[in-house]
């Protein structure tokens, strides 16, 4: 299959994914926005009103964390599920299987991007300054995409072999939500644990993205270097693992 045909395939699969996802629902895309917004509201009530966390622009602070996390969890879960829903295709047709995963991730990414626009709209409404440092955002978006795609490829390939991957991953997502600085700041993490805490690549990306968007803060070169390496590595490992496993997909799924 040539490059343009592969591109056509990913495009068609993505469009199909969108159509199937929002079929028969009145609000359509807005569910994809409503979910994080409702979560935002819940967390805001608990942490800002009850527990009195004192972080400036806390709703926006919270929202960027939630949206990023949402992209990760939705992207990976949708990818694993797409292996199930395209079971017959994988068993009976010849086509680059990774396009299923890529299109799932692209679909989640598009939703993420639209949600980010809402984020900026909210910034304007709340009259928060948009700093020049926000120009680094696209760079982080690419990193995030590679990270999520790599993870999705890895998990989906593993899922074909071991069907309990989905349950274990769901548990990890729940755990991950709380060991990533989404509702709180890294200042709360005891210093002796911080080194281990920052092994989580998403923690670094969220901290840096937030700094750039809300605090006029340029990420250090060291941080940029580390997150880039991790994203590329995740993608490469995921892709190679998927490619290697894909030979057995037709018989094992």
């Amino acid at each position: 299959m040539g490059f343009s045909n592969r591109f056509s395939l990913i495009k068609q699969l993505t469009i199909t994914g969108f159509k199937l996802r929002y079929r028969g629902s009145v609000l359509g895309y807005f569910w994809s926005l409503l979910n994080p917004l409702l979560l935002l509201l819940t967390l805001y009530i608990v942490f800002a009103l009850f527990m009195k966390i004192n972080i400036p622009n806390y709703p926006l602070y919270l929202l960027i964390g939630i949206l990023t996390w949402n992209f990760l969890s939705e992207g990976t879960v949708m990818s694993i599920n797409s292996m199930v829903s395209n079971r017959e295709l994988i068993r009976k047709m010849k086509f680059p299987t990774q396009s299923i995963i890529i299109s799932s991730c692209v679909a989640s990414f598009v939703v993420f991007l639209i949600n980010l626009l809402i984020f900026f709209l909210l910034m304007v409404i709340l009259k928060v300054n948009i700093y020049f440092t926000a120009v680094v955002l696209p760079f982080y978006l690419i990193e995030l995409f590679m990270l999520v795609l790599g993870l999705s490829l890895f998990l989906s390939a593993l899922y074909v072999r071991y069907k309990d991957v989905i349950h274990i991953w769901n548990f990890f997502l729940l755990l991950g939500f709380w060991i990533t600085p989404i509702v709180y700041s890294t200042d709360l993490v005891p210093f002796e644990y911080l080194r281990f805490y920052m092994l989580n690549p998403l923690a670094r990306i969220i901290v840096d993205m937030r700094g750039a968007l809300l605090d006029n803060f340029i990420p250090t070169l060291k941080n940029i270097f580390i997150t880039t390496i991790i994203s590329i590595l995740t993608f490469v490992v995921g892709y190679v693992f998927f490619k290697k496993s894909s030979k057995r997909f037709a018989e094992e799924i």
Partner: protein
Amino acid sequence: MNVAIKLNAVTKNFSFYAKSENTLFHSFKSIFKRDKHVVISAIDRLSLEINTGEIIGIIGPNGCGKTTLLKIVGGILSPTKGTVKVMGKTLPLLELGTAFQESLSLKDNIFLYGSILGLSTETLKKRLTYIIDFSGIRQTDTNIKNFSSGMKLRLAFSIAKEVDADIYLLDEILTVGDEGFQKKCFVFFENLKRQGKTILLVTHDLSLVARECDRAILLDNGKLVADGESSSMVKKYLSIIINNDLKLVKKQLRVNKPVKELSLAFSKLRMLFEQLLMFKQFRNISNTILPFYNLETLIKNREAKKLFFGELRALLNFCYEHADEKEKLFIKNLVKNALQEELFPLENNEMMKIVVEDSKTVFDKEIKIKKVLFKDEMGVDGNVFETGKSMSIEIIYQALKDVKRPMFGIAIFDSTDHLITGPNTTFYNVTSESIKNSGVVTYVIKSLPLLKGTYKVSVSIYDELGSKPFDYHEKKYGFKVVEKDIKSLGGIINMDGRWIYK
């Protein structure tokens, strides 16, 4: 010639756990205690070379590895051992329309299925109206969940047709769908042949393999049993089926009293079954009767005989209930023939009754067709003839009484059951005053005008007015025509005309 596909000692094993599914917990447990691993060898050390432009039929019993072989060649499965070399692009068409999304529109599905088959969005946009036209579907603005399975099949085929590949892997797709669709499939297939594409064809339709393929590969239990000229492979396959069944029956019935008369009757019944099994819709129930289907040497005791007739009756009844008018007629004729040969023990059975009564009123056995022979110019009988050469059809009859001026007739049909010609002796003013005992009536064709294809023949003997049949064998006979010296004209007949310029 260029090699298109080369398999070298290819083995494909499927392994799974006997008890449970693959889970992490299971793998963890198996570190300590190994679970029983079941390994099935779907393809076993298969070596094969296929040249560009060859039409290959792959035949063998269910589960012999036909589809697995196609999947390996098509790159859907990878071999456990051995190497596969495929030169050029393959298009595996294993099951049409697998990728359809029920809840999406026709157009969406065309784009989706097309791009999975490797077509670009631009191509699909250009060909969209053509694809819809070709599929013959009119309701273009509904979800395809409202479509019948036949419509979906036609749609999928119309899309797949647009893909340009070098090697086509077709799994039963020429034998599905309604008649019109099959014709379209066939035209497509003929076009591929003309373009010199390499085709691998998996089908249960053995006559299709014998007719359309140059070469056939016979698989059994994943092993290559034989590889060679298609019609001899088909014969070989039939003998394998029979042998397998014999083994099975031997196991089931441990009998060995020989009864000579029965063995003759059974061989005739087997032919009857073969004819019955040619009906596609009855093919899926063939498994239930297969063990009984060549009992020739085996059913030698009463028990087994009873079982056999019971099974036969059940099959006939089943077929009769599910048949349309045309097929009912066919079944009736089969039973009539069988009755004439006195093969059935007559019992109280409704369907049988109908047929028996029918046959009593219709047939009067004053004169019978004993045998029909097709002979070539040398007087050798066979069933393959050449266009332009002479051919004769001999009807060997036996009269029990004196029969006054009987009318002998034949009718020749093409493979789609269209009557080509139906000459009889009265029409040609060749009648003998009266006929006694046995004799031969011959219809001589000086130069056979029929072109390449298979033809069916009905033979009949009527009374002098043509109102009452003495004996009538409907499409019981057939022959094949090949073209050797002349260039293919296409169609059914060579009119032997000339072109003149002025």
